[in-house]
């Protein structure tokens, strides 16, 4: 609709304006630590703790954990890597805009600017930070992003494994070693293809700052430190920043208006391999997954946060192509996999949930594994161990406490492949089965509820400890045939004919009047 376009242009102009405002230079003002104390008590203490040590009551369930202010170190720092403290503007930004991908919200709508300066005074007092940092980040002359700069950045990213050592060859943070922060807590290298999880932003300037300063309290080092083996020049850092910014996988960004996986009909065989190029022809729909905190043993720290889904079908079969980033390939029994895993190593697994039957109305089974009145099917794939190959099974569930695994594969086949921090799995089944009372039958043109579950084995996810999505839709797009085209041509000819007749008869009438 035209309105949508007008609206989106207006909104993006507005957003651009707001971003310009909020990221423009915020001039540091002195805050009143005593006033800030009151705000801290009401708004901050539950996570960051009474003593500012990050040990508030919520700490245990938060991933990442709340900041320990007594260290005086912050992830977003724009003063030089060897400065003693961050700029006040850095603190202002973190409080005002929040930290994406964490539980820290932006406070600018509840707190006034002066409130924030007051809180900053309080927060700095926990580490007895005083004064201003002596040195700032030297930005030199910004190298604008270009194909050449991105190529140069990619070379530097991979050279001597400088960045890829932790961030992986494709930047997905597929770890090869266990990282910890200064407090001994487990940390994971950023998946650079998911810019919405960046604590600051994926603007090249922000990325340049992180590369230059490093990320204090984590193992992300400064690449400006002359003593480091990993030193890069200012220009080189701009190239890397431009490359990192270019890694954003825009086609796999969650779009909240996209709730339907549209399966296209193809002739011949469905591609069984997840790497088959035929899959590139199917547009992916990407959905958020959240930790399972609703039933049984609740789990707050699931590793998987999105899943991209494609689907194709033929007259007989249907196939789903599932793709999700996972920093670790978890194979129980494998020594390397065990060294990266937290606690207990289990298999990576994924499950797709369908209702056993689609209700006539809007009613669906309970989104978490169905209920007694409306059972669900779970198509579950597991990555296998060193002793056992990958496997697939069908679970019939009537709630999280009532799951029954069927014998055999239930007519389901699967093939998984792991590469550079991404799992790709294809699940295939015939559209119709004989057990119509227990299996969903896939009809063309029908909106089919679908939901997803994921277990990351290196994160000790098993049983009710997993990530999950809410219900979305799968649609087997019916082929429309030639009907719309034929009707359109007929209508156009008809209208054209009427117009010509009108013109002719008007001319004839005029000629009749003026002999």
């Amino acid at each position, binding site marked *: 609709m035209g*309105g949508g376009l007008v609206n989106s242009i207006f909104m993006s102009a507005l957003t651009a304006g707001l971003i310009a405002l909020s990221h423009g230079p915020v001039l540091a003002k002195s805050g009143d630590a005593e006033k800030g104390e009151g705000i801290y008590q009401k708004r901050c203490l539950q996570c960051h703790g009474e003593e500012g040590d990050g040990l508030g009551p919520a700490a245990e369930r938060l991933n990442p954990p709340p900041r320990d202010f007594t260290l005086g170190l912050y992830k977003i720092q724009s003063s030089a890597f060897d400065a003693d403290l961050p700029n006040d503007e850095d603190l202002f930004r973190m409080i005002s805009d929040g930290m994406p991908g964490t539980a820290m919200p932006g406070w600018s709508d509840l707190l006034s600017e002066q409130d924030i300066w007051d809180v900053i005074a309080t927060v700095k007092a926990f580490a007895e930070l005083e004064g201003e940092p002596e040195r700032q980040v030297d930005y030199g002359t910004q190298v604008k992003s270009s194909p050449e700069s991105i190529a140069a950045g990619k070379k530097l990213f991979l050279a001597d494994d400088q960045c890829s050592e932790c961030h992986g060859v494709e930047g997905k943070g597929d770890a090869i070693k266990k990282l910890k922060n200064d407090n001994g807590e487990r940390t994971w290298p950023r998946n650079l293809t998911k810019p919405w999880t960046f604590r600051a932003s994926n603007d090249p300037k922000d990325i340049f700052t992180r590369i230059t300063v490093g990320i204090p309290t984590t193992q992300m080092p400064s690449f400006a430190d002359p003593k480091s083996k990993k030193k890069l020049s200012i220009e080189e850092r701009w190239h890397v920043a431009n490359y990192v910014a270019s890694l954003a996988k825009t086609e796999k960004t969650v779009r909240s208006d996209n709730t339907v996986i549209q399966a296209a009909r193809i002739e011949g065989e469905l591609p069984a391999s997840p790497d088959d190029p035929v899959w590139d022809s199917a547009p992916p729909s990407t959905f958020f997954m959240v930790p399972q905190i609703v039933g049984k043993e609740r789990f707050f720290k699931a590793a998987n946060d999105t899943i991209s889904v494609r689907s194709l079908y033929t007259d007989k079969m249907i196939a789903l192509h599932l793709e999700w980033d996972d920093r670790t390939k978890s194979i129980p029994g494998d020594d390397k996999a065990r060294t990266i895993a937290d606690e207990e190593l289990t298999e990576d697994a994924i499950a797709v949930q369908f209702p056993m039957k689609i209700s006539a109305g809007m009613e669906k089974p309970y989104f978490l594994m169905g*209920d007694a009145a409306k059972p669900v099917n779970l198509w579950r794939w597991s990555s296998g161990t060193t002793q056992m190959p990958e496997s697939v099974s069908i679970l019939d569930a009537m709630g999280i406490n009532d799951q029954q695994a069927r014998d055999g594969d239930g007519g389901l086949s699967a093939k998984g492949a792991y590469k550079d921090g991404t799992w790709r799995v294809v699940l295939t089944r015939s559209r119709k089965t004989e057990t119509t009372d227990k299996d969903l039958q896939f009809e063309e043109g029908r909106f089919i509820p679908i939901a997803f579950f994921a277990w990351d084995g290196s994160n000790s996810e098993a049983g009710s400890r997993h990530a999950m999505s809410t219900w979305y839709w799968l649609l087997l797009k019916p082929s429309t045939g030639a009907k719309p085209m034929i009707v359109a041509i007929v209508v156009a000819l008809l209208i054209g004919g009427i117009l010509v007749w009108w013109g002719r008869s008007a001319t004839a009438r005029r000629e009749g009047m003026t002999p």
Partner: protein
Amino acid sequence: MKIPRLLQAVLILAGVYFGFIVVFDVLLDAVIPSSLLAMYMFFVTAGVFMVFTYDEDQTRELVAPIKAMVEDPSKRVWRNTVFVIVPLVVGVGTYQQMQPSFQAPVELRTIHPAPPTTAMIYGKRVKLLELENPFRKLEKEDPEQFGELVNEGAVVYIENCQFCHGDKLDGKGPYAAGLNPTPLNFQDVGTIAQLQESYLFWRISTGGPGLPKEAAPWISSMPVWQDFLEEDEIWKVILFLYDYTGHRPRSWEHE
């Protein structure tokens, strides 16, 4: 310069059309459904047509440009162009209309369904009409103890609720984007400020599965909190919700 009446009519219609879009889609941020917009525009078009064809002279003036285009020999190029473009546009429009829509079905859902008269909570049959927050009276009687209870409620909230409803109680917690329906925004004046504490107690303790059918219990991500929290903890977290947002619960006394 006088604007031709046909152009006037077209300008008015275009103005009204974009007016609707600016007011609803942009200013109110409530995108107007295309079927509704089509209905509005039908009435507006009918109205404009009636005004512009009030008497015969006006009617003649209105259709004069069209008549001229069809009949005037000097406008031949103009006429042929229109005779080609109009059927094409109608044809393409028909084709697009006939393509099936792959929009997800709309799911209607009552956000605050009427509560039942009684509910099974913590193994007891509770009459919701008679249910009161046992701690509410302390607000006047013992403000200090009341403040402590609010703080205890804050701890319950931050350990259990903020993941979805957010640190700021605005329904924008870290998991919110992955949920549909999205978590309730308690800061909004249309939520807890309109409800009684007993209603909140019912909603929290029985969670999504405790909703009646019109509220689509199968998609609500609200856990059944009586499985995880003590009764007192729920009453305390309710105190916290009102205290933090500055809203007042509704009660029979005020009405």
